[in-house]
């Protein structure tokens, strides 16, 4: 191969490498910018704090999560909360734990529901869909 052909080939290779690196960087930034991961993490942290506040509330109470969670599946049990999007791999799930007093229990789940409520009834914390006229 003569020198000119080799140098053209090298230039093409360099351009391909640069394009590849730029593509990787942009796709990483785009995946973070889509922010579903951030929404999941913030929602999970919020639910843990809401449960702590419900435990601290004497008597029964209901609280509605103020944001639209229609993209997510949310499950709760006495050990923690799990939030994921349908089809998410295990790595993309967000799990947060909380500690209930003895004899308290938490349960419930919602799937792609816009309005999600946490209800405390006696010693049970229940995750459910909000009733349409509950907070009117």
């Amino acid at each position, binding site marked *: 191969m003569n020198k000119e052909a080799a140098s053209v080939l090298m230039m093409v290779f360099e351009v391909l*490498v640069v394009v590849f*690196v730029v593509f*990787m*960087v942009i796709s*990483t*930034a785009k995946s*973070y910018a889509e*922010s579903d*991961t*951030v929404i999941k*993490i*913030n929602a999970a*942290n919020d639910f*843990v*704090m809401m449960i*702590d*506040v419900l*435990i*601290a*509330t*004497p*008597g029964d109470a209901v609280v509605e999560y103020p944001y639209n969670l229609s993209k997510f599946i949310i499950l709760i049990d006495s050990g923690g909360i799990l939030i994921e999007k349908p089809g998410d791999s295990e790595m993309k799930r967000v799990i947060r734990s909380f*500690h*209930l*007093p*003895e*004899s*308290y229990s938490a349960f419930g789940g919602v799937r792609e529901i816009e309005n999600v409520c946490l209800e405390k009834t006696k*010693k049970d914390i229940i995750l459910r869909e909000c009733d349409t006229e509950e907070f009117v």
Partner: protein
Amino acid sequence: MNKKAQFSLRKSISWTILGVIVTIVVLFFAFTIAGYKNQLTYIPAEVKAEFIAERFVNNPDCFTYQDPLTERTYPGIIVLDNFNEERLFSCYHTEQ
């Protein structure tokens, strides 16, 4: 060393340096993005602790006084008889 060999050596060194620089730039970018994400989801530990601690002075299953007749809870008023380690572990129950 003849010119051809010198040229090849310089090319190899250039590629190595370029590879290292590109790797550093990509890693820096990845860490910056991850740090930004952590900033968006950061909650101060004091805030979490405050919410957990609220139960001790508001929940009658912890230390708070509850009138046995009316079952009214008096937030902020602690029953000294309940203010012990056993009650604490029952109120903030962990696997450990």
